[in-house]
């Protein structure tokens, strides 16, 4: 028992867990041929059958029930404000399954030369009263009942009266912003708190104008819009949901990492020996002091940024995004590439931190300009 818990605590560390999550993502939503082969060999499509769904859910419930036997786990998961996030995790898994379950049925039908299920149904018209009005009424009653039960069963949290001189450790933002707060581990506030939210929202708003694929409107499908769904799933599940879960469940005092079965020890120390890229280049590789001229000092970082945002989009357009580029045209593609690459800086920076302890690529604290 203790060994299992210890094992889970170990692999729950972001730098290990993230690899597991990314690998599962690549196999479940294969973006490249290589992973498609593994996907087929493992028979991943069985996940989206009814049996597969049952298996996923039984596993999740079992894991959760097992966790609940542990005091430390209960302490985090059953904290009133964390209950919605536990619910969210189950709901997200359920709805991902539901969408892909229907998508698979439709894709199979289309592969056989048929039409999606929604197509046959849409030929038939029904009256909104009573068909829809009753469904809405029932849905509304169920949610209302659920809310009342929840409200009676779980009192809303209220801590000590506000005291500006005593700050709790950890101080956490509301859960739906914890993805942003977790990004603070890797980026300064101006990026995690201002630039990224802006990019996320702009990116979301741009989706309809980026996606030139006219197939897949009005029915569940995976095969007809693979690229779009793969990209969306990466950001929505692998980054957003992952960061929220880590930030909520696995970050304790001083924003240190704590495994799900670990006691939140306020004295836990984590060695911080992060260095900036400029220090790595000049002091370790070139074995000399940092140049005093800021621009010269940060030249390596700027060079990387220029290549990354200036050159990389063009290279991608010639290679793995060739089809995409042909379909989108220059303007759409450029906007897409910049948004996409910006978002990718997050996982890149995560790996740089874990592998090389890099803190900043460009570090100009004189102007609060650290990337």
């Amino acid at each position, binding site marked *: 028992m203790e060994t299992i818990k210890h094992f889970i605590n170990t692999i729950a560390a972001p730098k290990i867990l993230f690899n597991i999550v990314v690998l599962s993502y690549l196999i479940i939503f294969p973006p490249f041929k290589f992973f498609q082969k593994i996907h087929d060999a493992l028979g991943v499509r069985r996940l989206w059958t009814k049996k597969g769904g049952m298996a996923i859910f039984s596993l999740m419930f079992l894991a959760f029930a097992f966790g609940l036997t542990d005091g430390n786990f209960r302490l985090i998961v059953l904290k009133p404000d964390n209950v919605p996030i536990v619910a*969210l995790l189950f*709901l997200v898994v359920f*709805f991902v399954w*539901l*969408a892909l379950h*229907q*998508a698979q049925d439709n894709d199979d039908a289309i592969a056989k030369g048929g039409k*999606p299920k929604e197509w046959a*149904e*849409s030929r*038939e018209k*029904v*009256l*909104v*009263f009573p068909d829809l009005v009753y*469904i809405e009424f029932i*849905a*509304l009653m169920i*949610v209302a009942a659920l*809310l009342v039960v929840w*409200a*009676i069963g779980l009192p*809303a949290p*209220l*801590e000590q*009266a*506000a005291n*500006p001189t005593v*700050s*709790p450790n950890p*101080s*956490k*933002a*509301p859960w*739906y*912003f914890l993805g*942003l707060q977790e990004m603070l581990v890797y980026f*300064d*506030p*101006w990026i*995690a*708190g*201002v630039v990224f939210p802006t990019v996320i*929202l702009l990116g979301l708003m741009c*989706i*309809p*104008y980026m*996606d030139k*694929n006219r197939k*897949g*409107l*009005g*029915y*569940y499908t995976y095969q007809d*819009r693979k690229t779009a*769904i793969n990209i*969306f799933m990466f950001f929505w599940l692998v980054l957003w949901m992952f960061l929220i879960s880590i930030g909520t469940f696995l970050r304790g005092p001083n924003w240190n990492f704590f495994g799900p079965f670990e006691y939140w020890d306020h004295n836990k120390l984590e060695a911080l020996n992060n260095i900036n890229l400029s220090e790595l280049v000049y002091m370790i590789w070139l074995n000399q002091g940092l140049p005093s001229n800021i621009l010269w000092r940060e030249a390596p970082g700027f060079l990387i940024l220029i290549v990354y945002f200036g050159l990389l989009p063009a290279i991608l357009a010639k290679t793995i995004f060739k089809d995409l580029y042909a379909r989108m045209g220059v303007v759409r593609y450029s906007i897409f590439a910049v948004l996409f690459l910006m978002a990718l800086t997050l996982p890149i920076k995560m790996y740089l931190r874990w592998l090389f302890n890099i803190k900043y690529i460009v570090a100009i604290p004189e*102007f*609060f*300009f650290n990337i």
Partner: protein
Amino acid sequence: MNANPNKPSMWEKFQSTQFYRSVFRTGIRVVSHRQRMMIMLNSVFLHLHPVRLPKHAVKVRYTWCMGGLSFFLFLVLTVTGILLMFYYRPTIEYAYGDVTDLSQQVPLGIMREIHRWGAHLMVITVWLHMFRVFMTGSYKPPREFNWVIGVVLLVLTMLLSFTGYLLPWDQLAIWAITVGSNMAGATPLLGMNGPGSNLLSIGDVNLVTPVSDARFALLGGRFVGEAALLRFYVLHCIGLPFIIMIFMIVHFWRIRKDGGISGPT
């Protein structure tokens, strides 16, 4: 029990009164196609819907009801929020005590619970609604712009939740908002801890200072204090609900104008 099937029941008698017929204009017994259509057309609320829909669109497994539930939760939050406003005074002196009283003094004091859990739930349903709209490709033409409006609704939902978080004025509240608003202080150019904060200046006078930056504008002060509480209260109870309602109206209108719920062609 009605012995004679032809004898009208109490309910049927009531339905033929002048009063009932003045309220529900469609008539006594809804049996015909035409009447079912008239029910939709005669009601201002039901009239948000079309009269007839393709069958796939009324299936729960297609829309998951998530948009409708988000709207329903918004209504629940409005009603419970108004009830909470009867008891709550947005000053440092009273806020915390008023919230404590809500559960201890007020009969059937679960309004705060319903409001808080309902708010969490609304964030969840809005996210899931967005996910289903994505998965059915419903943002594709002609519905591009309604997706954009949807993203605005998403932001507003989260801002409503965020501003409400401060109002109980407990440790959880002020420190969560402190974490959140510190980020505003890092806004490029406009935040005093943001890159380029010293670029905006007239001569030697720097325009972005601790008492004039983005964070100050949000909080009405240098810390999360009295002014911030009032600002968040006004935004939470008046400002943001007003704006989100306008966007919702446009959102619903556009669903109809864009050809109703999406479907395969």
